[in-house]
């Protein structure tokens, strides 16, 4: 079975600092692969290389067996790599519905048109409405993103990414800044999405990681120090020592 | 021919160091504060007018110099305190508009005070002659003075940036503004110092350029546009880039203007050659910029 996403021997240096030190990992079909690590472990640097915002010094990124190391961000997206941003990054002056519509239109293509009417593209808006239906954002569809709460923006991040129907989804701390109830809701939502879409989940919230992940990788100082099932990671003494220090956090 | 070549090359270096004096300030101000200052050329003009006025009143070129520097620095600090300081967190468009407004005002204020006519100033005593550099090459001492001053300033800036605490902050500020703030440095003071220094250098360049060309309204914008090309080619934020680019562009511009029409005369009529030659020569540095952008979009010495 080919991995949906494969990262092989990725290296990235900043001056004397090796932020990504020979990192390899895979996301298999049906898998939710969690990437955890303390602050400064190099998670953001790694994500940016997978998405194409940053070029690695060495190594390769493959999407469904295809080498995308040299591809640009939009090219990777078109090939099926979806992502959410840790600090929400949306079209702030557009409505919730329009944000999803722009994602749907991007997937449908035909956006280099000067003489159509975006508002009149029925297929785009039908799909945007379908994505919104049943979510907590449905009654907020006409609200401009600037006026959303943090939790709502986090939900929209996910919806926008799903609108592109990604083959694999990169989630950059989807729980960050969410309250307890919102977190529980997000976990449920991600579990649902995970049934159809494999994910690489970068997360600090250990509850979420152990509730969702089928496999966990631990990144410390740019290096993967352990990889395995959630239970194995939970009981790995090296992980406890190097990453957590305090034992109770993994409990 | 070779004597002429050397002479024009020296002229190019002289123009280049003048460009550097302006570009250094501009690139520092942008690199550290993230502000684009179109009115930098106005400081150059203010230095030239203030110094010229003082020199005419006192009869001494050298007494004009401190006045030029002080006027440009004071104008610069006033602009920083009253306008630029409000724009640090605004987008570039607001900065462009506000400093464009300053240009309009500065030019009119100068016209009100000194009129529209270009003013020609005399060379300072002791530097009004020329020296025999090579057999057959007598070169004006004043131009040599400008070259020397420009190189001295470049060396001074290098020392300042690489050997002092202020320089360390400047370097840190150019790469990471938040880090400097986190160090507990009074960033506002650093900004003021850098802006004042940039203004000082602009005033120096303006005053020294006075006797070579003419002191006139619009002199600032003319050289400012060439300075932009220097900053873009050198890489925004890089002093070293500004120095290298200023010298290259100064020499290229001067050489093209001096020799291109003559060269074209070999293949076409003199009238056509002059027209085409001057046309291409005046576009030369911009075409060079286009070339650099094709190869290195962020400039030769881009910092990031």
């Amino acid at each position, binding site marked *: 079975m080919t991995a949906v996403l494969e990262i092989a021997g990725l290296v990235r240096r900043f001056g004397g600092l090796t932020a990504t030190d020979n990192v390899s990992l895979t996301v298999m079909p049906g898998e939710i692969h969690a990437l955890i690590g303390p602050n400064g472990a190099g998670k953001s640097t790694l994500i940016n290389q997978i998405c194409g915002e940053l070029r690695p010094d060495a190594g390769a990124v493959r999407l469904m067996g295809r080498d995308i190391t040299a591809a640009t961000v*939009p090219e990777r*997206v*078109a090939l099926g790599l979806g*992502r959410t*941003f840790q600090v929400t*990054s*949306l*079209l*702030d*002056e*557009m409505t919730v519905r329009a944000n999803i519509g*722009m*994602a749907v*239109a*991007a997937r449908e293509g035909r*956006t*280099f*048109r*000067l*003489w*159509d009417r*975006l508002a009149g*593209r029925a297929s785009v808006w039908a799909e945007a409405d379908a994505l919104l239906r049943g979510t907590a954002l449905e009654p907020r569809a006409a609200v401009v993103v600037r006026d959303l709460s943090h939790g709502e923006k986090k939900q929209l991040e996910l919806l926008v990414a799903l609108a*592109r129907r990604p083959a694999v989804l990169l989630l950059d701390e989807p729980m960050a800044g969410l309250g307890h109830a919102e977190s529980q809701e997000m976990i449920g939502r991600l579990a649902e999405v995970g049934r159809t879409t494999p994910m690489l989940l970068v997360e600090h919230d250990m509850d979420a990681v152990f509730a969702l992940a089928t496999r966990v990788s631990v990144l410390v100082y740019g290096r993967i120090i352990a990889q395995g099932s959630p239970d194995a990671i939970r009981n790995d003494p090296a992980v406890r020592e190097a990453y957590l220090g305090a034992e109770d956090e993994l409990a | 021919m070779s004597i002429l070549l050397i002479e024009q090359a020296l002229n190019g270096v002289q123009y280049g160091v003048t460009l550097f004096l302006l570009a250094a300030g501009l690139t520092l101000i*942008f690199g550290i504060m*993230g502000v*684009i200052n179109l009115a930098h050329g106005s400081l150059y003009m203010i230095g030239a007018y203030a110094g010229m006025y003082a020199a005419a009143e006192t009869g001494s070129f050298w007494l004009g110099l401190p006045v030029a520097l002080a006027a440009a620095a004071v104008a610069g600090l006033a602009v920083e305190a009253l306008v630029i300081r*409000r724009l640090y967190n605004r987008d*570039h*468009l*607001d900065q*462009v*508009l*506000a400093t*464009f*407004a*300053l*240009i*309009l*005002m500065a030019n*009119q204020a100068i016209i*009100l005070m000194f009129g529209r006519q270009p003013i020609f100033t005399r060379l300072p005593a002791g530097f009004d002659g020329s020296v025999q550099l090579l057999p057959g090459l007598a070169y004006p001492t004043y131009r040599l003075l400008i070259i020397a001053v420009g190189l001295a300033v470049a060396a001074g800036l290098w020392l300042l940036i690489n050997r002092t605490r202020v320089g360390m902050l400047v370097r840190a500020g150019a790469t990471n503004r938040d880090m400097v703030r986190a160090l507990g440095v009074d960033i506002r003071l650093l900004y003021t110092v850098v802006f004042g220094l940039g203004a000082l250098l602009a005033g120096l360049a303006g005053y020294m350029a006075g006797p070579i060309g003419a002191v006139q309204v619009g002199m600032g*914008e003319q050289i400012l*546009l060439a300075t932009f*090309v220097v900053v*873009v080619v050198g890489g*925004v934020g890089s002093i070293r880039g500004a120095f290298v680019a200023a010298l290259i562009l100064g020499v290229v511009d001067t050489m093209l203007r001096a020799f291109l029409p003559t060269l074209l005369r070999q293949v076409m009529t003199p009238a056509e050659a002059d*027209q085409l030659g*001057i*046309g291409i020569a*005046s*576009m030369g540095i*911009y*075409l060079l*910029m*286009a070339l650099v*952008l*094709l190869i290195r979009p*962020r*400039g030769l010495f881009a910092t990031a």
Partner: protein
Amino acid sequence: MRAVILILAAAALLALPFAAQAAGQPALITLATRIAVYAIAAASLNFILGYGGMVSFGHAAFFGLGAYTVGVMFHHAGAGPMFGLIPGTTHLLVTIPLALAVSGLAAAAIGALSLRTGGVQFIMITLAFAQMLFFLFVSLTTYGGEDGLIIRRPNEFLGLNLRDRVTMYYVALGFAAAFFLILWRIVHSSFGAVIQGIRQNERRMAALGYAPYRYKLAAFVLSGMGCGLAGALMANVLRFTSPDLMHWTKSGELIVMVILGGLGSFFGPVFGAAAFLILETYLAGWSEHWPLALGAILLVIVLFTRGGVAGLIARIGGALQR
């Protein structure tokens, strides 16, 4: 409601020459013509500046190229073909498409290079390239060099006499109306939405799969063509063209018009152009040092208001209601 306002505005614009002549102010007709033409240029700039977030400080270059297209074609209609190959022409239906092509090609070249970087470099590079074209036309003595080129007869257009100021007004108005209709379609198209998305968040748009560069370049070219159209019309209004039309201060003035009208507001540039030209006309009549006052006004607007004249009026209105 909007339709009523549009109809009333159209009626007022159509009636303007009669009102001006009845009031004994025929100079107003020429002023209105210039406003219509500059509105086209400012709205073109607003398309990339207000909608697309690209701060071009070189748009006067395209305006000037449009004007020179008319001037140079007129020159060669009298003086024989350009390079012995390209015949001149005095027909508006030829010079306008030609002006669109010339300014579009120049915008493609300048845009392709300057859009390789962003932010402050983009501003400096557009400014520098515009200045390069300015120097080029200053050095072209065949076309009058620094002094410019006099166009003794305006272009021929459907048998109309463009020398007549009322006729020229209606022609300019017609072009402006068509232009704004087209612009309306583009702003509300898929392409227009992508351009606005790129301004709001370029990183997000890339993550949605849009490649920003080609959209921005296309918008830059369209915007340059709009300025070229305005320039070609202006050459017919002034019956003159000179490097001054592409001077860097003209680029600044176009930005000022956009700002005065309110960034990214569809009809804002019309009001911005009107405000600027009326201000210029009256300040210039009052003192030759009017740029001093203009600078001061601009500075106050930038430092103390947001959203241009429209925003200023809204704020004053808000303050009065309190």
